[in-house]
């Protein structure tokens, strides 16, 4: 790469990180009279913990009463349905059960119930095994007691992040990708932030950098102040096919015991079943690999909840890293004047994101004396999801836009028109995985075996790329190494950077 002259840019608020938390904060900030810019180290939104996520909207009985985590969880869960309706994001209120397999466990459920009541969770109750099985028939006959939380839900974590980002962009926020923050220092009128692409002068900075957030927090907090310690905690999952049966429609947790935390079995908003996650602390913040041992652990634990769980119907397995803070608490505060942090956001981070957005945006606005805008437009309409439209609407859409008649992904029924439209939106996908997370092309049972060449072609056309410049996810994730008949060392074959 030819080194570019560093460019210096300005904004009122620089948000570091375009995960669900960064995007929620950015959107809330655009309600104010502020120039907001989001810098993201990866090439798209939703590339860290937000993408390898259970998609659960937790009711709010897990966190210790009085903690920030408890308060933001309950607030976030309350905000989620309305937010999803406003942003055209799939959300379903499916309820959750915490299962326990012996009478001794009942005390644990009572503790969770009491905790939930103190946190302000509505409608919690402890039910017997038979009642649990009446609520969710796939529940194991070995289950003796369960905590029923009818307010729990599920959300599409990818679309939530994309929708928050798009709506922020529609309201004036700007995004830059592949821009990694190197350092931040106080400067006249705010902060000077240096990045891999230049520098930023910002009145305030919001650190929502996920696993990287401790580095920025510790660099800005005074030397005498306590350090923040964040460990990458790996969670491995299985994803089951939509046709898998029998699977639960209610989210099933297991009561943590001295033998471990257990795993969940939960539906996704799109009809798949998610099984996991493990919780293994790792050193490498890039170690998103699955291991045979962890996956075996997931399977072994999951069949305790659902004995007939069809693990033969696995269509993929994956792992994500959550930013585990040593005290298991969200760290949401200024580490230095004008340097705000939303750090240590692990589960229930997705649930809490809407409330974190409000809380951080309020604090930043107060610090910058920002005022509310009159022209904020909070509603966002997603790309039409062809598969879910009624017949007449499908027909009129194809009549108007023939490319909606070309099916690109047969597993999830995604059309060429949807991919083209996604590419023309405020925060477009740049990679195969970006398309997959927005539209589900490649997320079905053939896992991209069929659609990959077609999605590549649309990205080439829409983004003006050579085939070798189309990536899966990440700058080194080339899919093809140029044309055939040219040889490995032929420069013609090397369309893109390696």
């Amino acid at each position, binding site marked *: 790469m030819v080194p570019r002259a560093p460019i210096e840019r300005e904004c009122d608020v620089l948000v570091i990180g375009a995960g669900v938390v960064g995007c929620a904060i950015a959107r809330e900030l655009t309600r104010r009279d502020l120039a907001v810019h989001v810098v993201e180290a990866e090439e798209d939104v939703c590339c860290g913990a937000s993408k390898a996520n259970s998609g659960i909207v937790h009711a709010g009985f897990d966190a210790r009463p009085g903690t920030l985590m408890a308060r933001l969880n309950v607030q976030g869960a309350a905000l989620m349905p309305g937010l999803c309706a406003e942003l055209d994001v799939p959300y379903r209120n499916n309820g959750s059960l915490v299962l326990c397999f012996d009478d001794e466990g009942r005390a644990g459920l009572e503790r969770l119930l009491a905790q939930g009541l103190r946190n302000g969770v509505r409608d919690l109750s402890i039910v017997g095994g038979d009642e649990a099985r009446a609520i969710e028939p796939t529940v194991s006959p070995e289950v003796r007691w369960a905590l029923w939380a009818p307010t729990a839900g599920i959300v599409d974590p990818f679309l939530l992040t994309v929708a928050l980002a798009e709506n922020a962009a529609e309201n004036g926020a700007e995004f830059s990708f592949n821009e990694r923050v190197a350092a931040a220092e106080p400067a006249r009128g705010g902060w000077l932030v240096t990045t891999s692409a230049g520098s930023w002068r910002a009145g305030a900075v919001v650190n929502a950098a996920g696993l990287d957030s401790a580095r920025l927090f510790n660099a800005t907090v005074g030397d005498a102040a306590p350090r923040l310690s964040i460990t990458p905690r790996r969670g491995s999952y299985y*994803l089951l096919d939509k*046709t898998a049966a029998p699977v639960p429609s209610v989210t099933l947790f297991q009561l943590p015991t001295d033998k471990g935390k257990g795993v969940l079995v939960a539906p996704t908003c799109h009809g798949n079943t998610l099984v996991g996650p493990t919780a293994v602390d790792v050193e490498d913040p*890039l170690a*998103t*690999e*699955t*291991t*045979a041992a962890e*996956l075996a652990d997931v399977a072994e634990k999951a069949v305790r909840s659902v004995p007939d769980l069809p693990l033969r119907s*696995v*269509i*993929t*397995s*994956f792992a994500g890293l959550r930013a585990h803070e040593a005290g298991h608490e969200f760290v949401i505060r200024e580490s230095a004047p004008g340097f705000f942090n939303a750090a240590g956001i692990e589960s229930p981070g997705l649930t809490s994101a809407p409330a974190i957005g409000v809380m951080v945006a309020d604090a930043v606005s107060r610090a910058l004396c920002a005022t509310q805008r009159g022209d904020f437009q909070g509603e966002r309409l997603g790309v039409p999801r062809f598969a879910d439209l009624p*017949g007449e609407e*499908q*027909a009129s859409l*194809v*009549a108007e836009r*023939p*490319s*909606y*008649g*070309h*099916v690109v992904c*047969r597993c999830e*029924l995604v059309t060429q028109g949807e991919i083209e439209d996604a590419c023309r939106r405020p925060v477009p996908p740049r990679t*195969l995985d970006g398309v997959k997370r927005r539209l589900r092309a490649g997320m079905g*049972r*053939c*896992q*991209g*075996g*069929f659609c*990959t*060449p077609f999605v590549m072609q649309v990205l080439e056309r829409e983004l003006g790329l050579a*085939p*070798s410049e189309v*990536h*899966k*996810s*990440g*700058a*080194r*994730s*080339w*899919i*093809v*190494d*140029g*044309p*055939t*008949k*040219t*040889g*490995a060392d032929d420069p013609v*074959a090397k369309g893109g950077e390696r």
Partner: protein
Amino acid sequence: MRRDLVIIGGGPAGLAAAVAAYGAGARDILVLERDVELGGILNQCVHNGFGLHAFKEELTGPEYAARYVEMARERGIECRCGTTVLDVSSERTVTCLSPERGLETVEAGAVVLAMGCRERPRGALNIPGYRPAGVFSAGTAQRLVNREGLMPGRRVVVLGSGDIGLIMARRMALEGAEVLCVAELMPYSGGLKRNIVQCLDDFGIPLLLSHTATRVLGRERVEGVEIAQVDGHGAPIPGTERVYECDTLLLSCGLLPENELSRQAGVGLSSVTGGPVVDERLMTDVPGVFACGNVLHVHDLVDHVSEEAAHAGRAAAAYVAGGEGETGRRVAIEAGSHVRYTVPSSVDPARLDGPLTVRFRVTEPLRDVALVVSADGRELVRRKRRVVAPGEMEQAVLGPAVLADVTGPVTVSVEGGDRG
């Protein structure tokens, strides 16, 4: 719209069914193909070896397809490309979608399912490690190389010795890539013997039997694949792992009949083949819905697909013409010892007007065996075979006379022989 016969899929099975249905008198035929051209997967099979049985000559995939495309054209059979079928109902209402014609429904007198198969993806194989770019099913890589002229990578490991994997090992070598090995979980290959010789042996590519991939390395692009030997139960043996540095992993670990539409139509599927359960007409348990080719069960040779599909096409034409009623007789055809499945799985002997071909696969490689078809305590057919293997489909042909007074189930089995 109403059509006598709707054929779903314009690959080798769909075209052969259409041509044969025409030959049997059907005229109002519609073939629906989702790709922009007819021919199906043959269009990316640029190697030769097709047509030795059907045309007594050696053709490439596109040449073989072109023969059938031409036959369909000569007969004026309507084939609509770029058309995806979204739904088939048990009443044979076919809903399809195309950019030109939008959403359409067709009431079909009979339907032939000829959607082919798909490859088993990595997720279903459950290989631990990262999920980088560079892991392709062999057929996807074949499409990229042969149809799009794009190289999926330069240093390649192939997992699974299915025919597409073997063909792609050779193709990648011919395109200048280094193919390090083909690893196969089973102690024998799932591919045709001739492909082992012509694609691996002739190119010095090692075939590692009883080996599997235990880890994918590389976070963004494949950087290596860890291969380990497996024990008799297919479990990796600790200490035998070896990392092959490569940028590409091709998967050829089995093909799955693509029966999403069949399921929507309420067609009963076999848990062994993944395809519909059919009678001797290749009719499914939904009246008027027939199946043939790889959607029915995965074939090794397209020649056999064409033959089977022609049979389905003729039967569908007869169904539309209303000639064959139910006689009420139905004799089950069952898989006996060393046989995984049979197609068809039942026969009405009263309805047979010619010999019945029963296709089947054996469960393991065996030498010096007899293929035996028996019913009512007597042998109907016995044929000696020197070698049989799961990778090579077998067939038994039963004359109508042989089956005429059979009452009990017909059993196909493989007897005697040594593990080979």
